């Protein structure tokens, strides 16, 4: 398959873009694979890609119940950043950010990686302390973080309510290397690159069971028949508990719904990503001009990919409180995605008690930014049957051991994480 380039774009333009080849094949499932990855979101596709690229394991299938990329990968607000406090988190997310920085070259795909900056606002002395501590902790690990005062924030986002706000803005923590990435392009880019290395991407194939022989995986039962596998990796976002239950495993996870919103297209209005933690609101502007924003999870167990009105009202209220001009903006689209909320707000990339079964899940509302590193670490864990140092703490067992990674300090209440 040919490489994408400006020259190719020009050539195809001459024929009205009618002769682009398929970006990836649509193969029939083979009877067995070395590795079957369940879930064709960014995470599953990235794991398959890195298995082939980094570990020379190309006899891999990604099995997806619908079309690829229509789960949370295609439903999220696309914010990428590595501004976490705990080293277990920021080292991992920083590796992800580094992978994002080289991703388009690596995949030969325009994923619209836009390092426009992520600005988190604070509104009190106490919050400033926490942000300063987080920023310092990041800088000690070599990650960029700048503590801004009120005037510096005003210079970047003058349209915030600085004069009359319910939560007066005192400053912000800016990570300039953070930003947004085009979500669909991430799935498509990984799919195309994995396919080119020999990975089979099998869409419209739902996994309905996991066959186990003597505590070792043998393959997956699917709506298109049994597919044998020496190893199986789960990357099914909000459905991790459901798949784990197929092998009798209970997890420290509840599935919850998070909503997102897109406005009508506007002229450039917000240059960076702004997060308003005190009011549960964050916003950025897509290249098409739509304001992309969201807030907190609805807050009850749900596998429905839709949310309810109270959460919408809350998000819009917070938005208008922060940026009064938003009161005149029309919302065009709204949707929900189902996420694994873990008991400490941190993810799982690990082995399981079943030999040959691996897990990449528990991403809460923040797993898009993790896509490259999660795929990379998941692939490493599968190939070596052992975690990389970057994900060695993201185990199920950390809860039993008292080694939770609770960035928010919300305790074992997934609806509060």
């Amino acid at each position: 398959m040919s490489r994408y380039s400006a020259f190719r774009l020009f050539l195809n333009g001459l024929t009205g873009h009618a002769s682009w080849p398929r970006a990836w094949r649509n193969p029939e499932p083979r009877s067995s694979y070395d590795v079957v990855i369940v879930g064709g979101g960014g995470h599953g596709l990235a794991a398959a890609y890195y298995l082939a690229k980094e570990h020379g394991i190309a006899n891999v299938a990604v099995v997806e119940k619908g079309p690829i990329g229509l789960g949370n990968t295609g439903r999220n607000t696309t914010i990428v950043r590595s501004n976490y406090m705990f080293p277990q988190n920021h080292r991992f997310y920083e590796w992800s950010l580094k992978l994002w920085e080289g991703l388009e070259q690596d995949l030969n795909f325009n994923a619209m990686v836009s390092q426009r900056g992520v600005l988190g606002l604070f509104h009190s002395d106490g919050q400033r302390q926490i942000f300063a501590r987080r920023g310092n902790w990041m800088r000690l690990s070599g990650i960029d973080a700048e503590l801004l005062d009120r005037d510096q924030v005003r210079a970047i986002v003058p349209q915030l309510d600085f004069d009359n706000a319910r939560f007066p803005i005192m400053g912000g923590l800016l990570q300039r290397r953070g930003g947004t990435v085009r979500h669909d392009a991430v799935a498509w880019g990984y799919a195309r690159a994995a396919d080119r290395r020999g990975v089979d991407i099998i869409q419209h194939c739902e996994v309905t069971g996991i066959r186990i022989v003597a505590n070792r995986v043998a393959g997956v039962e699917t709506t298109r028949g049994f597919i044998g596998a020496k190893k199986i990796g789960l990357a099914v976002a909000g459905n991790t508990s459901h798949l784990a239950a197929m092998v009798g495993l209970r997890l420290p996870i509840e599935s919850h719904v998070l909503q997102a919103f897109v406005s009508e297209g506007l002229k450039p209005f917000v240059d960076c990503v702004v997060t308003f933690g005190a009011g549960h609101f964050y916003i950025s502007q897509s290249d098409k001009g739509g304001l992309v924003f969201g807030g907190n999870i609805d807050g009850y167990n749900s596998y429905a990919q839709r949310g309810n009105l109270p959460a919408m009202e809350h998000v819009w209220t917070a938005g208008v409180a922060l940026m009064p001009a938003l009161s005149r903006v029309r919302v065009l689209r709204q949707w929900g995605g189902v996420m694994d909320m873990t008991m400490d707000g941190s993810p799982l990339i690990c082995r399981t008690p079943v030999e040959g079964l691996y897990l990449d899940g528990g991403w809460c509302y923040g797993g898009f930014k993790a896509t490259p590193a999660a795929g990379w670490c998941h692939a490493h864990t599968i190939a070596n049957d052992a975690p990389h140092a970057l994900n060695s703490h993201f185990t199920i067992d950390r809860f039993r051991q008292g080694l939770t990674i609770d960035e928010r300090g919300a305790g074992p209440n997934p609806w509060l994480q």
Partner: protein
Amino acid sequence: MHRIDCPWCGLRDEIEFAYRGDATVRRPPADAGIDAFYEYVYLRDNPRGWHVEWWHHAAGCRQWIKVVRHTTTHAIHATAKADEDMQVPRS
């Protein structure tokens, strides 16, 4: 929008309530050991289907109530006071 029939107050909107999670987990005896507490505190069935759960009527009668709710349709099958046992429908 969930409309929750509080056994004390009647039909109310979900905004009056605070969600408090799976109502089937039971606190083990104090000497039950680390595994029992690990399961109690952290592990959940997280079913795709009917779910028995706590809702706290925080802006109403202040009581914790039990609700049987479906996690894909959001339909509410039944509600009850905290000390009642709830039946989960088959399906």
